[in-house]
């Protein structure tokens, strides 16, 4: 059984939390629930209202988008990855389903706790912004690419 101090060490390795005071990280770890998910069990589902972000402590989770044509795995979250923070930042429903691929251990960080930390540590906010911006630029690139291919497919 992992102890709090091990979790704090782990959180410190995550770039997102690098700027945060170790004492506050301990508080965050203390306040977070350590959850275990079995293979195939959803951590959260697309369309649900988000109330928490997760840090993957162990294992791999599939990020799945549910479409009419079936589920598409769009990415994977590995150890130390932070998932589900978008929904708690701007009150939108979950944009994807995250499902355990093999056993997953994750720290569940409640929305209020995350927001409170962001207030106390503006650097955390900047870090989140940076992360989101890079994701946006990646998605934009991908979108442009997809459009280009779509145009090439449809005649005229």
């Amino acid at each position, binding site marked *: 059984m992992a102890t709090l101090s091990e979790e704090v060490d782990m959180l410190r390795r995550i770039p997102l939390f690098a700027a945060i005071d170790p*004492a506050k990280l*301990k*508080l965050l770890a*203390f306040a977070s629930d350590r959850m*275990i998910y079995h293979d195939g069990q959803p951590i959260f589902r697309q369309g649900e209202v988000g109330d928490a972000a997760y840090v993957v402590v162990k294992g791999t989770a599939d990020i799945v988008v549910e479409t009419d044509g079936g589920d598409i795995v769009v990415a994977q979250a590995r150890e130390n990855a932070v998932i589900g923070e978008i929904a708690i930042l701007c009150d939108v429903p979950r944009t994807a389903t995250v499902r355990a691929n093999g056993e997953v251990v994750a720290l569940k960080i409640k929305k*209020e*706790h995350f927001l*409170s930390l962001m207030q106390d540590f503006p650097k955390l906010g900047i870090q989140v912004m940076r992360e989101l911006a890079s994701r946006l630029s990646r998605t934009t690139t991908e979108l442009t690419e997809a459009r280009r291919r779509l145009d090439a497919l449809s005649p005229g």
Partner: protein
Amino acid sequence: MNQLEPNVLKYVWQHSRRDQLWMLVVILLSMPTYFLSLDLPKQIVNGPIQGRGFENPDDTALFMTTYLPLPDWLGGSIQLFPGIELDRISYLFALSLMFLLLVGANGGFKRYINTYKGRMGERLLRRLRFELFDRVLRYPLSRFRRTKPSEIASMIKDEVEPMGNFIGDAFTQPLFLGGQAITGLTFIFIQNVPLGVVTLIVVLFQAWLVPRLRRRLIVLAKQQQVEARQMAGRLGEIVEGIQDVHVNDTSNYERSGISNALSSIFAIRFEIYQRKFYIKYLNNMLIQFLAFLFYAAGGYLAIRGSLDIGQLVAVIAAYKDLPDPIRGLIDYDQQRLNVDARYTQIVEQFAADYLQDASQQAVPDGPIPRLSKGYDITNLQVIDETGSKLIEKASVRIGLDEQVCVIGAVNSGATQFTEVCARILRHSSGRVDLDGRPIDQLPEYITGRRLAYVDGGTYFPQSTIFDALTYVLKNQPRAPAERDEETLREYQIELSEARRAGNSLLDYRADWIDRERIGVASDEDLASRIERILADVDLDDDIRAFGLRGTIDPQHHPELCEHLLAARRRFRAELAANGLADIVEPFEPDQYNNHATVGENLLFGTAVTAAYDPANFATNAAVREVLARTGLEDRLFEMGKEVASTTVELFGDLSPDNPFFDQLDYMAHEEIPEYRAALKRIGGHRLADISPADQSLILKLPFAYSETKNRLGLLDDEMKSMIVEARRRLREAIEALPHPPVNFFDPDRYNPAASVLDNVLLGRISSTVAEAPERVTVSIRKLLTQMELIDDIFRIGLEFNMGSGGKRLSETQRQKLHLARALLKQPDFLIVNQGLNTLDTRSQRQVLENVLAKAKGRDGQRFGIIWAPMTVAYAGLFDRVLVFENGVLTADGAPDALRESSPAYADLVGS
């Protein structure tokens, strides 16, 4: 007896004539002893004590010489008993003993009279209350739209109450007091005629004046009664709608409303007091004015010599006895007027036109046959209270076993049509025949048993689900209640009292459930019938869930508890096979349970008293002693210090509204400075060296600690085995107590305080695995089904208490329950008026399909349906559809045919 007797005295006389007369006889019989007991003290003082007749030491007197007083022309008095010759001392004792006897007899009479009066009053009160309630049951339904329930309750319960006291005195008191007053007056007349005339004038003036003054008082009494009743009604409404008060912030409006009502009641009551005491003052004045006359005028006459002084003294002595009976009479009259006012008020309130005839609610002799013909409705017209036409000129026949859907827009008359069929709404003209007879002439034992009606209402009185379901089968007692000799005797007395008071003679404690009518033989059959019906309305799973959460008493269900213990063993054995091994940690007496706190691991059971709750271990001397003996106390102390310092470090500088505090369940924000100071005080001291307050402050913490949850790394294996050892010793210590305050977790024993689910589980579910509790419940349910225990669980679920108004059930569940009990009746016609409007459309359709299949004979019995659905989309499921438009029946036929022929139908279903 359709109207109540309007005069209260007549009502009392009607129902207690014999008792009142007997009362009078007993009072007259008691008179001689009463007067003798007043006379005897004088005899004792004058005779043996003062020595009259005993002038010489050897004198004797005759004791108990008795004469029958006869007038002289009949030969004078006859000596009945010559008497016994006694000397002075013996005579004294004989007379004193006689006095004692008379006092005893007197008291006996008084007690008998009072008890008799009391019982007479109570019987009459009981009769009146019952009659009022009987009328409530026979009111036309429309009346309840205007009457508040709590007003009816207040009238039957409180307002008739004072009548009970009055009834006993209604006839005897005026006779008794009147006699006394006349005697006193006569005596004054005999002594002196002019003084007698003056007295009579004053008394007559009083008798004339006082009732006039009291007229206003009666009006006020009536007003007060009405105001108080209205307040009771208002209070009832506020409580019923308490949710609206909260969600609209109108509590202050309600406060002001009730305060206003209280203020008018106060004004009325205060005026009553003022007048009452003013009248009392006048009365006293008039009576004392007589005394003034006697002293002044009588004295003047005596001094002048025209009146004998002896006469004057006698008049004054007689006058002394006069005020009491007169005041008593005035008070009696006051009470009579009061009661009369109340009574007429109530009678007026309970008067109703169209009171249902009592024969309509009679108890039938034989079984009620099924209907042989259906509805035959001609020229049906319904007009509401405001005069608008709800239905006009509808003629329709609905045969037995026909399934009819009634549709129409809002206020089209469709829903009212179902109400007419169920006899809830009276038709204004036309004919509604059921089984060849006008529906409003049919007794309720036909309509109530052969028809079933369900609307959107979701009210249930507080009862179990089973009672709510079988309520519809409780039409008359079926099998007598089992009684032993003693309770049988008690019942006979109850029955004879009920007869005397004109109450119901049906035995409430008998078995009322009519199993025969629905063709079930035993309680098991009834339960499985209920199960099938609840499955049709999709409520059976909910009931099983209630059963799993319910508790059972092993003394009532020893076998079931044994089976559940077997289920527990199997559940444990199959944990791994079901993939629950890392989710559930069973409670084992010799193992530390990682999902429970340290305190729970120590106690290893559920505490019955607060002192043995783990939260209070730190201050429980018995627990502390065990901990000290096992050496655990010092370890826990170190642990507590660690928890305290970590917590202070983590939370010390956070503001109290910081969201992180919701994660801290063992320490409040205010306590943090306290702990910080305590830690500083304690420093490196050992447990024994610090103050008891600090000891319990620190020791409180480790009991709430759980390694899986708090993750501070404070529990090692050595510590865990120490805790398990302490657990054993603590249990020994607790079991040695006279009434062990703890139900211990015992793998081989059923815990009556825990739910069925917890008993099978007997362990902790991991809080760190997602959706763990749901998976465990599903697994236990599957196991109980495999072991064929789920029917028992279902029956336990039926015993679930629905709470006030049935509110422990969801609205949807309550609507399903209403439909289920209508089906349980096995009616000839099931009438549903938007009865499932809180269900989602998919379940509505599912339930409707089940009910239709049942009506078509799926379970053997066919029956007719008249259904006004919420959405017209279901019309296609029926054989026949009636379409109402603005109160007119515009189409009638098979849905497919109507699609062609009726534009209204096509429009409604949106083809």
